[in-house]
């Protein structure tokens, strides 16, 4: 990889302009990771320093620290630059502990499963 000029960095699609910035990375499995980009390559593999996972359930959220992360590029959906002058989350959201958010996640999962099973039971009615 040759060294890019300053112009190339500003005008190109490379992640070079995001180096040493705090970013939000969305993964294919729906996870949201935050961290400082320290390295990347042509596959969008990335190294995030001080990474944490932001878990959001309804109006509750929690940041779970992860440390130094190497992300395989094929799992990356989007890499967003966080504007430090803006609020990262809407004001109505409440921060809770990791235990609470795990409980909320389980409750949400159970509700979805229940909905799925009820729908399956009603399928024989052929209403649609």
């Amino acid at each position, binding site marked *: 990889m040759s060294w890019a000029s300053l112009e190339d960095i500003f005008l190109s*699609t*490379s992640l070079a302009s995001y180096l040493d910035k705090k970013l*939000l990375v969305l993964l*294919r499995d729906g996870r*949201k990771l935050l961290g400082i980009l320290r390295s990347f390559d042509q596959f969008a593999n990335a190294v995030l320093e001080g990474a944490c996972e932001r878990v959001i359930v309804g109006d509750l959220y929690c940041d779970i620290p992860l440390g130094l992360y190497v992300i395989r590029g094929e799992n990356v*959906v*989007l890499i967003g*630059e*966080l*504007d430090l002058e803006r609020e990262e989350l809407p004001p109505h959201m409440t921060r809770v502990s990791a235990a609470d958010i795990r409980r909320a996640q389980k409750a949400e999962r159970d509700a979805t499963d229940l909905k799925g099973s009820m729908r399956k039971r009603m399928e024989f009615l052929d209403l649609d």
Partner: protein
Amino acid sequence: MLFFSYFKDLVGREVTVELKNDLAIRGTLHSVDQYLNIKLENTRVVDQEKYPHLLSVRNCFIRGSVVRYVQLPPEGVDIELLHDATRREARDG
């Protein structure tokens, strides 16, 4: 290379990128590359309440492999030019 060249001509336009995970993002096309990775500026998420974590994201990099659609303004498309370029590519392989 055809779509790469086509998107390069659209740099600076407002586009809406719909991703395979159903997320739709509107923004100004900043740049594109050979993998059709897209960088957007002045981004706004189409359904903001559903994606609160994207509130403060103003610039983003979107991996080409996760794009489902790129929605363009109709005035931004010269369909005849695209037609000719496609026929040329098909002919020249």
